[in-house]
């Protein structure tokens, strides 16, 4: 009888213990199964952890494997960056993510570091074939420094940087742009565009044509930003030769009042003409009430179906220009040059040619709208019809690329510039992903409201619970 009882207990205990182990193992397997399914929902308003269409499109076209190393101590990875990286790894079978502890893998890390430099914890290395790019951890965020030097994280640029690195390591191409100097032009730094251009995978050098004589052969694009003085005849000729050999030029112009005959002559060789004056817009839908509906400051219409303006349309970004001149096609034109207006004023606008005329209405000397304030020009091959010759973009409102009083730098204008460089360098698939803002508006609350809320949360709610408890418990006690 005793023997039976022991067996009964042992059998039950054994079964119970075995069931527990099986249930635990089953649950672990079940969880591992779900872990392999990358199902998640980005609940953030700014979609901080969702990849943009540009990145997804780039990844869909990947035809080689990419390795992303995230340098971090196990368990101490910055979770926000890790989430973004996991999005990449989960979105393409071509991309593999590996979290590497740099202290344990110094050899792996050192092969990607520049001579004499080390790669810090939290950095990301993107590798494909012979190409690699290191993204420093500080470059994964947009950081501003206060006057006291205190850093403040304003946004996350992880996707911008990683996608840009992906584009570079898979194509291995970094177009070289030359910024012309010697005519009091803007520099990229002065326009706060240096960092944006580099992030978009361009290499930047300066070009002094007076010293160098000719445009270097490795130039993908020459950029001229709001020159205040004219080119010399030799410079104009050099640029002309460069363009005739399939070169690309971005030129922004402002109304200077000075003689620009050699610059104009260069443009005329390619059917282009900048008409001095200022465009006055009267369509109130295109004016900014914040600028007092100033007719000189307006949002131009974007060209239909064009690689330079498409992304602005897709993202509903409004470009703004001010004191813009007009760009036109010359009366006599070569047939193989394709002229495309990119930014236009409305029908209710005009170009005021006589600047001494202060009338707010269109007068006899004005050119009627719509006026093109930015145009592109592509030279086509007469036989094949392909656009494989010279490419030019003219923006007749150079200052629009700078920060505007009260508005700062216009995002769409920057995107227009980067898209222009992409088109000019024949790199239309290149990347221009905006930084994702992490900035939160503070709570706008006055002292009285704050104290009222504090009283509700700290006194009223707990007090209501105490009163309810007292009443109920008292009534139960005296039933």
């Amino acid at each position, binding site marked *: 009888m005793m023997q039976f009882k022991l067996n*009964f*207990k*042992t059998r*039950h*205990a*054994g079964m*119970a*213990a*075995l*069931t*527990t*182990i099986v*249930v*635990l193992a089953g*649950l672990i397997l*079940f*969880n591992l199964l*779900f*872990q392999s*399914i990358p*199902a*998640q*929902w*980005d*609940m*953030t*308003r700014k979609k*901080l*952890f969702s990849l943009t269409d540009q990145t997804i499109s780039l990844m869909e076209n990947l035809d080689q494997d990419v390795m992303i190393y995230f340098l971090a*101590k*196990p*368990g*101490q990875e910055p*979770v*926000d960056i890790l*989430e973004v990286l996991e999005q990449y790894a989960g979105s393409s079978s071509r991309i593999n993510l590996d979290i590497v502890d740099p202290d*344990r893998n110094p050899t792996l890390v050192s092969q990607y570091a520049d001579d004499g430099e080390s790669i810090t914890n939290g950095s990301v290395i993107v590798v494909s074939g012979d190409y690699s790019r290191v993204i420093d951890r500080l470059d994964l965020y947009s950081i501003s420094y206060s006057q006291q030097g205190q850093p403040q994280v304003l946004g996350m640029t992880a996707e911008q940087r990683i996608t840009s690195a992906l584009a570079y390591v898979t194509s291995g191409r970094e177009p070289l742009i030359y910024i012309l100097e010697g005519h009091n032009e803007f520099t990229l730094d002065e326009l706060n565009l240096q960092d944006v251009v580099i992030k978009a995978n361009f290499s930047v050098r300066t070009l002094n044509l007076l010293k160098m004589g000719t445009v270097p052969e490795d130039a993908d694009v020459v950029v001229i930003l709001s020159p205040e003085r004219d080119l010399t005849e030799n410079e104009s000729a050099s640029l002309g030769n460069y363009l005739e050999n399939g070169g690309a030029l971005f030129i922004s112009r402002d109304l200077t009042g000075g003689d620009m005959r050699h610059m104009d002559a260069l443009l005329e060789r390619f059917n282009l003409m900048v008409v001095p004056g200022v465009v006055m817009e009267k369509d109130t839908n295109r004016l900014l009430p914040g600028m007092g509906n100033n007719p000189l400051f307006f949002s131009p219409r974007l060209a239909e179906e064009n690689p330079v303006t498409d992304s602005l349309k897709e993202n509903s970004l409004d470009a703004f220009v001010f004191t813009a001149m007009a760009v036109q096609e010359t009366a006599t034109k070569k047939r193989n040059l394709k002229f495309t207006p990119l930014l236009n004023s409305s029908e209710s606008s005009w170009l005021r040619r006589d600047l001494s005329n202060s009338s707010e209405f269109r007068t006899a000397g004005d050119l009627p709208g719509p006026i093109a304030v930015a145009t592109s020009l592509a030279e086509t091959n007469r036989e094949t019809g392909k656009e494989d010759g010279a490419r030019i973009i003219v923006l007749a409102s150079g200052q629009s690329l700078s920060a505007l009083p009260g508005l700062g730098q216009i995002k769409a204008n920057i995107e227009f510039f980067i898209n222009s460089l992409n088109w000019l360098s024949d790199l239309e698939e290149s990347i221009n992903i905006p930084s994702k803002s992490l900035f*939160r*508006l*503070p*709570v*706008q*609350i006055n002292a009285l*409201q*704050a104290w009222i*809320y*504090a009283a*509700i*949360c*700290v006194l009223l*709610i*707990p007090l209501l*619970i*105490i009163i*309810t*408890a007292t009443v*109920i*418990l008292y009534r*139960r006690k005296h039933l």
Partner: protein
Amino acid sequence: MLAVFRKELLTYFTTSVGYIFMGVFLLISGILFTTGNIFSMNSDYASFLSGLIMIFLLVVPLLTMKIFSEEMKQKTDQLLMTAPQPTLMIVAGKFLAAVTLFFLTLLVTGLYPLLLSFHTKMDTAQILGTYIGFFLLGSSFISMGIYISSLTDSQAGAAILTFCLLIITWIIDFIGGFMPVSILAGVLFAFLLTALAAFWMFRATQNISAAALPVLTGVIIIAIIYLINKELYINLIGKTLSWFSLTNRFSSFPMGILKLDAIIYYLSFSGFFLFLTTQKIEKQRWS
């Protein structure tokens, strides 16, 4: 189950337990909210919620300590065992009642983001996601507390043990960062787990043969994995602790990411501890 659920929920509101839990939780959260968000004009409510978990960890033992230990002390657990209901349903009823009280308390804190929304633009979806994560994490804590309550007839003992275990789950991820990462350490850790399973089996059955089963299975699995890919043992201790960590999985919710695997993990965790509680109660039938 419904009868147990009703009775338990009613008990929370007809005794002081429910009010103490709600009162303490809402008082501390109210203080943290006013100092962290209102007076500092900070609109980041999701971070406030994730900070609130530490407070919840302190008050969970108040909620769960008496669920089974009180029954055992007053010998009313005998009634439960003879009740015409499966044990799992009784456990589930008690669990749902505690979770409902927790849910109602969280509902009251919904007033906080409402107040903030009058003065700034709130990330409604992100806050909702954080609440979902908080609720699932809290339910996991509660299920663990219920299991511990079934182990002892001392309420104070249950409360202290629950608190200690919750603190361990809180820091388990952090501890994992300091563990050795070598292959040898990983293999030894795997053997240790196997030994623990064998010990547990032996303790339950008092039978050497029964205890040998997990040892044999464990050793075979460890050897196979070692032969196929021994790299899997690198940092096994840290990876295991991190994988089981409740708080590690929560970190994505306040960031605004709702992960299916995290939701499944919390549900599995609660389910497993309810299963363990059922096993513990069932054991009294045949031991």
